[in-house]
């Protein structure tokens, strides 16, 4: 009991004294997750909208695949990416293994299906009369699509936040392709795993507290945005 108490008090001291190592780990975590998410949004959002608006053959299969990939085990993604990026792998010449770029790629792969599938759900949830109304007012096909996306914006934002929640808390894939190298590829989750193994609980707990605080902050923002979407003027 006292060791838990000690870990917490030392963790809080690390946080309040803005420990340089701690800050470096947090910064890299945020950088990797944000860039990974950005890549996933740039690719996944248009795909989700396309799937929501267009009708074509094999669409059902594609949606089923995306929904399945939403639950991809991160270690499996890490494993396949490792095989691709390792020196003897097909992309070995890029020398990306154990770099933060490889971690960004891993997190993009994990976030992409979430962004695409939840964007698709948000778009198909928009009342078809919205598209018809914008069409009657003289919108081009692109403008009709934009009107539908605008109506789906709160659902799309939820999807992006859910994807961020997944990548920021993820450990398996980035541990495999990043290697948890101190000062280079060590992020919050991999550091927690390592420090726990070493019995070095104060840094692990400090990072744990920060991770939960970030998650709480993001979900609070999401809650406010969604509440506003229900009743307010935007």
């Amino acid at each position, binding site marked *: 009991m006292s060791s838990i108490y000690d870990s917490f008090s030392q963790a809080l001291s690390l946080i309040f004294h803005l420990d340089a190592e701690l800050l470096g780990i947090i910064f890299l975590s945020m950088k990797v997750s944000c860039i990974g998410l950005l890549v996933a949004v740039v690719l996944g959002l248009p795909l989700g909208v396309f799937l929501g608006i267009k009708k074509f053959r094999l669409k059902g299969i594609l949606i089923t695949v995306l929904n399945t990939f939403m639950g991809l085990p991160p270690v499996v993604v890490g494993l396949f990416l490792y095989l691709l990026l390792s020196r003897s792998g097909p992309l070995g010449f890029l020398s990306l293994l154990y770099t933060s770029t490889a971690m960004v790629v891993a997190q993009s792969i994990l976030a992409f299906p979430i962004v695409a599938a939840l964007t698709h759900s948000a778009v198909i949830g928009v*009342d078809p*009369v*919205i598209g*018809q*109304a*914008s*069409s*009657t*007012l*003289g*919108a*081009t096909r692109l*403008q009709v699509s934009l*009107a539908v996306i*605008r*109506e789906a914006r709160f659902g799309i934002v939820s999807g992006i936040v859910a994807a961020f929640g997944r990548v920021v808390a993820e450990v398996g894939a980035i541990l495999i392709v990043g290697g948890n190298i101190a000062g280079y590829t060590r992020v919050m989750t991999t550091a927690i795993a390592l420090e726990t193994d070493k019995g070095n609980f104060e840094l692990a707990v400090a990072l744990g507290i920060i991770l939960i605080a970030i998650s709480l902050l993001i979900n609070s923002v999401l809650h406010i945005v969604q509440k506003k*979407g229900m*009743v*307010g*003027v*935007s």
Partner: protein
Amino acid sequence: MGLRLAVSGIAKSYNGDTVLRDCSFTFKEHGVYILTGPNGCGKSTFLRICALIETPDSGKIDYSLDGGLLRPDLGLRRRLTLVLPKVGVFNTSVSRNVAYGLAIRGIRSHESERRVNKALEFVQLGHKKRQNALTLSSGETQRLGIARALVIEPEILFLDEPTASVDQKNTGIIEDLILQMKKDKRTTVVMATHDREQAEKLADSVLAMKDGKFS
């Protein structure tokens, strides 16, 4: 009348159910045309085809100006508009809803604001312009639909049952708006209703529809 619409021999069916059959009419003069008929007789489909948001299975929709036939392109579509029975309000403020048709035409800032305010005053919603449009009552929503349509100054305005799910007070306001448009003679109004009394009150011409054609 500037824009002239000639509908000839249009037919439309959905999943084998014929909704319109050999439907023809020419809208020659400015005025208020009211389509009447029971539910399911094809009024809405007729309006959607005339407003160029649906295509008929057969027959022709010809818009012409000074004797010259117009191509059914975006330019023509932007000279007409249809207010749907469900309206389809956007989840944003009343004024932004009304400004939509102007924004997609590249009209913004002062000009847009002036026209939006004028349209909202016309439908008596000026005091609600900052409110979220989804919080309006059904009668107000219909009036918003009319304002959103009128702000783009259509030459032909199609209205699909604008008073079907609206209380007496709002029905009165909407009928007054249509009578005002009839007096102004700037816009031709083609409206569907199943209320015969309303049709007699508002129309320059009443077109009775039955089983997918004009009787």
